[in-house]
């Protein structure tokens, strides 16, 4: 266990709210049976009962993320998330926050490529009030120029703080823009600065009217609630909202065939230990053929998932050349996604040595596959994580919400452990061989200024 050596993985992974694979629902006979249904206006509802604590997590997921933005309007999805906290025709600005705070609840929101979600964690008695507020802001927001200008300054500061102040983040943005040549994941969720500066009221209004409708939303309620009660409350609140225009299917540009090896390099005075990552375009749970995404999850775990993984054991422990080395796969995405390996040198080792050793492990796993022992241990860890990873109830809500917002179903979540168990060693080798071709990869290098010539 390395107390201080998680910095690279941390910066590469960033906010991993919903990136891990889906997790099994609670199997207790009287608890955890997930129900889902549609309201008449098309809003989907998922209820995850969990009676261990008188707490409920109430989330609304909109199937709209940065990858759905119109050209030239990057950042509008995230900007709009911020604007949802402003005044409505029924409530003054801040009234919702004050109502949550007054009962000791917590609330927040987040935006990703494929979805935007809003949530409150409160006592169950407050569920109806939360639904009232949330339903209200789905349609009744007041968008005026003053509100827009001030909040735009906030997101510009957010960009300076998250991206522009951080060389790893600056590099990450441009690696993404290189890995993705055509697919909208090439554009950062927060947006490009020069486009963010021009986002205006008309953009916000158009975005709101098109996407913030009940038929484009998923309500997820997890906690100490009865599904029948949730249904009645949802009908009473969200059910009153008129269905919006039907949205076209979320068909976005996809990647052309990649025929090159691409590299992106940032040298920066703030960097003193170099690092690299190499990424490939791979299928997500939504786009993969049956079993492929599960095999990719297991591949990432065996290759570089933790301190028992091949990359860690070979590079950090046995060869002693890396401070860190690992791999990850982000499966819960609507379109094709990325598989990433990364590493940083330690001591006298050079970045090139670390990269060569990582690539040797990638080549070895693609050629010789994994042992049955490795595969079983990786599966055990995933299955065990379902007992451990019933986290707080909001992580269950996150798993269902993210899955449903990226084209999956409740059943997909529930059947995930069984599908993981079925993956064979050959299937893991096959996905490695099929997708991890170094000649068709994208690498990012973060280098100290003194190494600029290397």
């Amino acid at each position, binding site marked *: *266990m390395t107390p201080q050596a998680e910095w690279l993985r941390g910066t590469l992974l960033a*906010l991993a709210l919903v990136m891990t694979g889906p997790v099994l629902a609670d199997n207790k006979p009287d608890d955890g049976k997930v129900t889902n249904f549609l309201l008449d206006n098309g809003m989907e509802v998922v209820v995850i009962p969990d009676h261990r604590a008188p707490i409920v997590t109430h989330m609304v997921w909109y199937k709209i993320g940065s990858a759905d933005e119109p050209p030239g309007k990057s950042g509008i999805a995230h900007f709009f998330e911020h604007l949802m906290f402003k005044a409505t025709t029924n409530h003054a600005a801040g009234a919702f926050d004050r109502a949550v705070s007054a009962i*000791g609840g917590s609330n927040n929101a987040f935006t990703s490529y494929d979805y935007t979600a809003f949530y409150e964690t409160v006592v169950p008695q407050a569920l109806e009030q939360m639904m009232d507020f949330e339903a209200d802001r789905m349609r009744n927001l007041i968008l005026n120029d003053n509100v827009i200008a*001030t909040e735009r300054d906030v*997101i510009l500061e957010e960009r300076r703080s998250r991206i522009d102040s951080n060389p790893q983040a600056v590099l*990450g943005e441009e690696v993404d823009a290189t890995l993705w040549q055509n697919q909208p994941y090439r554009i950062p969720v927060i947006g490009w600065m020069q486009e963010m500066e021009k986002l205006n009221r008309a953009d916000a209004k158009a975005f709101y009217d098109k996407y913030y409708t009940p038929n484009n939303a998923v309500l997820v309620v997890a906690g100490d609630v009865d599904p029948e009660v949730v249904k009645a409350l949802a009908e009473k609140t969200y059910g009153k909202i008129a269905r919006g225009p039907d949205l076209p299917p979320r068909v976005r540009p996809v990647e052309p065939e990649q025929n090159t090896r691409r590299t992106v390099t940032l040298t920066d005075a703030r960097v003193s230990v170099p690092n690299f990552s190499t990424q490939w375009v791979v299928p997500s749970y939504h786009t993969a053929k049956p079993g492929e995404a599960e095999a990719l999850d297991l591949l990432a775990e065996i290759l570089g998932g933790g301190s028992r993984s091949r990359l860690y054991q070979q590079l950090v422990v046995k060869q002693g050349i890396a401070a860190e080395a690992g791999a990850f796969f982000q499966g819960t995405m609507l379109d094709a996604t990325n598989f990433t390996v990364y590493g940083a040198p330690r001591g006298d080792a050079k970045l090139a040595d670390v990269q060569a050793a990582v690539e040797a492990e990638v080549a070895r796993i693609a050629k010789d596959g994994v042992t049955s022992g490795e595969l079983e241990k990786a599966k055990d860890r995933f299955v065990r994580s379902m007992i451990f990873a019933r986290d707080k109830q909001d992580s269950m809500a996150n798993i269902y919400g993210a899955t449903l917002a990226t084209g999956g179903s409740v059943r997909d979540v529930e059947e995930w452990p069984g599908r993981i168990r079925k993956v064979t060693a050959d299937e893991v080798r096959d996905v490695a061989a099929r997708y991890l071709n170094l000649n068709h990869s994208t690498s990012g290098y973060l280098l100290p200024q003194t190494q600029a010539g290397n």
Partner: protein
Amino acid sequence: MRNQLSGASASPLVRDFPSSTRREGRAARVATPLVTLFLSLLFLVLPALSARAAMSIQEVTSSKGITAWLVEDYSVPLVAIRFVFDGGTTQDPAGKEGLANLMSGLFDEGAGNLDSEAFQIKLDDVGAEMSFEASRDGTYGSMRMLAEQRDSAFDLLRLAVTEPRFDQAPIDRIRAQVLSGIIANELDPDTVAQRKWLEALYGTHPYARPDQGTRQSIATITAGDLIAFHKANFARDGLHVAVVGAIDAETLKKKLDMVFGGLPEHQALAPVADVDPKLNQQIEVNYDQPQTSLQLAYPGVKRSAPDFFAAVLMNEILGGSAFTSRLFNEVREKRGLAYSASSDLVDYQHANALAIATATRADRAAETLAVVREVVRRMAQEGPTEAELAATKKYLIGAYAINNLNSSGAIAATLLELQLDKLGIDYMQRRAALINAVTLDQVKAAAKKLLSAEPAIMIVGPKVGEAEKE
């Protein structure tokens, strides 16, 4: 929750930084783990709710005199244990800074007759998660285990705690990783500035030292240093334990003796002086970067002070974790000056402070600092309104369960902090009344006391003059 600044894929952007470190009292030291438990204890702090089934905290004392607080619960087949030995990084000898941190990385790197590889394979087979962490005032350990593998897991924990091997190869490897982290941050403006900030506030006190040490200090650490440090710190009279999950009191007593009974009885800690952070100073760190970050330090309040909750309520209104605070409203909502603006009560065993932090574009840094100082000045002079106080009392009472008791790990961490703060096993029943008893005058007095001082201020960013010329 990780909130690294990164452009990595699939990272949702959140509305505001999560406030996991803004719990009342000590800053949260726990990476909140998994597994929700049934928490009917909530009815104690939320009297409006009907009681479901009482969750009781038991005090368990083993035959060797080791005490633990236990919440026995079988709704999930898990056991979570969390414990701390007093001491922590303040016990690092001068010149050996980083010793406690390095030791905390070595407990799963070989113990008893198992070398590093054998130990980690066994831990993986048993399916338990074990972690150690050195904080300023204590070395924390925790383990989550499947109930059916409980015996094997506790055996491994006993080995780790009582018989760590400190073999040279893992020492060198973990040290090299720590060193890499130190070097990686050497040119990072925030890290450099943070170090200057701690030195300015705490001078030569151990709180000024970097927890992971320096290039020079960690190079000098030997196996002998680790063995001596372990012996001096891992002893029964400085141990506090909390356990949550599928285990009964009688079984736990036996496990406590088994895991910790082999440790020496008495710690041999170096005394650590109390220290008042040095206020009334201004530190400027010039870097050409897109934002200027501002930090301000005011006097804090001790956990044991009679006006503790008055100060907690005041801080919450000033810049607490809800989106309703004055700083959030004045700096972000009204003026769009920053993404984040907050205040925190820093509560170490030997020092206290109220810390404010925000970051803004360089050419608006002066304006932002003026707004922050005006918010503080107004709070110091006028205090909060009756309505703000009433709302914040409700928030603090209700938020305790939602934030502190929402998983077995969180419950264990909370029980441990209650023991460290000597608040008593019935504290949760008393807490709401303690908060409700605070008067507006007391909060005004706390505001005046903490916020009238001239603060320490650190400004990190481009030279003021240069930024304004742009």
